[in-house]
């Protein structure tokens, strides 16, 4: 059993008659880097704001080190937040911003000074003590916001799309730095993002959310390789998601072709969702694969070609290191291991049973 620092127990929240969180249960371990991932409106930000104390759940409890903190106001929680819009205090310079929480805790001025120096070094901003926030770039402001939160030595740091407002190149740099900072301070990070690539590169564990419900939890690898439903498969990476029918254990029929797979335990002739990653499809001679179709487009993406092959009504997306001729007929084949079979959801909001 892992060391749980924070626990959400059957948390629900409704805004204006719209259910934003529906009976959410989540356990977060000490020193974990956990990411809440999902499209906007999925409930991830609300979850974070409930943990931070800015939103009260309609029902359910928030437990911090086993104690119920559901009704505790934000200023009394040993949790700090890095906000999406940085939210630095515009009338204070960088040093005053960082000192804000420490001064409220009546720390000695020497302690505060040391902490500011340490934190600014940690985020690579030493020398900026006297600058006003509006004279800093977005990336610099975000570093200050991180420093401002970390000096309070929170046990949990909440990060609400902290890189969302930065440009792509800066974002990659900051991702690496966040991981470095996380290692250095050794506290729990709860990170919210809608950017799946960010989630996959940084997190120990990812919680995929949609419509207020946890769709899947697991490591980056398990979420990417074994999505449990069509939503997760669609949201994480590029996928071909297509209807299929289980003909028997380890045999699925897609577009009329029977293809061996590794999944067992489905009903005979049960309709299923089939997920195949573009990099797992292999282009063969016209008659060399399970499926046969025509190349309709090809785009060079640098490391690979993205090729679309039309089979019946469906355009398969394939990543391949070799080009193909538009208009030519090709075959598609795939290893049984790379086929992911999922039950059809009973309704749109169907829950996924917890795997771990």
């Amino acid at each position, binding site marked *: 059993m892992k060391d749980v620092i924070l626990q959400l127990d059957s948390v629900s929240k409704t*805004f204006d008659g719209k259910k*934003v969180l529906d009976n959410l249960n989540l356990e977060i371990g000490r020193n974990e880097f956990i990411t809440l991932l999902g499209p*906007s409106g*999925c*409930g*991830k*930000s*609300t979850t974070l704001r409930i943990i931070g104390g800015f939103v009260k759940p309609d029902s359910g409890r928030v437990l911090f080190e086993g104690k119920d903190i559901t009704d505790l106001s934000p200023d009394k929680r040993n949790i700090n937040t890095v906000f999406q819009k940085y939210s630095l205090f515009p009338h204070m310079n960088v040093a005053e911003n960082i000192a804000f929480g420490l001064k409220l805790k009546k720390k000695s001025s020497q302690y505060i000074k040391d902490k500011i120096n340490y934190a600014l070094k940690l985020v690579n901003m030493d020398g900026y003590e006297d600058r006003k926030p509006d004279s800093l770039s977005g990336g610099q402001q975000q570093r200050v916001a991180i420093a401002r939160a970390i000096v309070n030595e929170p046990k949990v740091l909440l990060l609400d799309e902290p890189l969302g407002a930065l440009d792509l190149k800066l974002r990659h740099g900051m991702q690496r730095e966040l991981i470095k900072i996380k290692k250095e301070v050794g506290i729990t990070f709860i990170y919210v993002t809608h950017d799946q690539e960010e989630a996959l590169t940084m997190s120990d564990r990812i919680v995929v959310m949609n419509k207020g419900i946890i769709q899947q939890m697991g490591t980056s690898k398990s979420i990417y390789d074994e999505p449990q439903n069509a939503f997760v498969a669609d949201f994480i990476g590029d996928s071909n998601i297509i209807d299929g029918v289980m003909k028997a254990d380890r045999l699925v029929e897609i577009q009329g072709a029977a293809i061996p797979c590794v999944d067992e335990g489905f009903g005979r002739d049960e309709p299923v969702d089939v997920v195949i990653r573009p990099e797992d499809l292999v282009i063969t001679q016209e008659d060399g694969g399970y499926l046969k179709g025509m190349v309709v487009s090809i785009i060079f993406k640098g490391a690979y070609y993205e090729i679309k092959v039309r089979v019946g009504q469906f355009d398969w997306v394939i990543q391949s290191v070799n080009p193909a001729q538009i208009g030519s007929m090709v075959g598609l084949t795939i290893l049984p291991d790379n086929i992911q079979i999922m039950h059809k959801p009973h309704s749109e909001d169907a829950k996924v049973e917890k795997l771990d």
Partner: protein
Amino acid sequence: MVEKLKNWLSRFYIGIIILFMYAPILVLIVLSFNRSRSRVVWGGFTLSWYQSLFSNAQIMDALWTTLVLAFLSAFAATVIGLMGALGIHAMRRKNYQVMMAFTDIPLLNADIVTGIALMLWFVRFLPLGFTSVVVAHITFNIPYVILSVMPRIQQMNVSLYEAARDLGANAVYGFFRIILPQLASGILSGFFMAFTMSMDDFVITYFTKGAGVNTLSTMIYAQIRRGIKPELYALSTIIFAFVFVILILVNYWPGASGKRGRGEQDY
């Protein structure tokens, strides 16, 4: 629990302030329906002041003067102020600051000082009368226009104008099609502020008007000792109700200002 108490306290306090702001207005509205001419005795309900109001040439005259004065001075102040603000904005830092300091003079000076200074000038060079009042009102209105237009000019996208010129628009076309629309809200609020200030002014009008010119304010002031004509309560009530309805329409007309609180963004 605490949240509920806070909400209740907030509402209660706002209620007190509203009561404070509207108590005198309520008194005046009640008086406009009072049959008795006395200010302290209730003589029964009547609408007769509303009827006699429109046949009272003196009051109608003052109303007309007030409205024409407010419109003329607000309009002239808007034109001069808008051009002034555009010009000042293009000035070097030093000149910009000097001009803004001059703009502050009528705002910083007490009304009575502004009124007297203008009066001393007028009696030498310009006969006191309607014209002198218009000039005086334009003078104290221009700063309000400049102060509401200047922030908009600072936010304005100058490159749009330059792009329009680059594409062959002449200066006049560029001004009316590119610059004006960007400044519209500032110009409009400047105009209405000037209009309101002009309508509400007493002191400066009092010193700069000649004999025979009366606005509602100066007429009411002259009547304080003899007793206010009840028709004036009726007129004030009409003006008040008119503005009240207009502002309600502007603010609460569906779609006029579609602003909603937080919570819509991202859950």
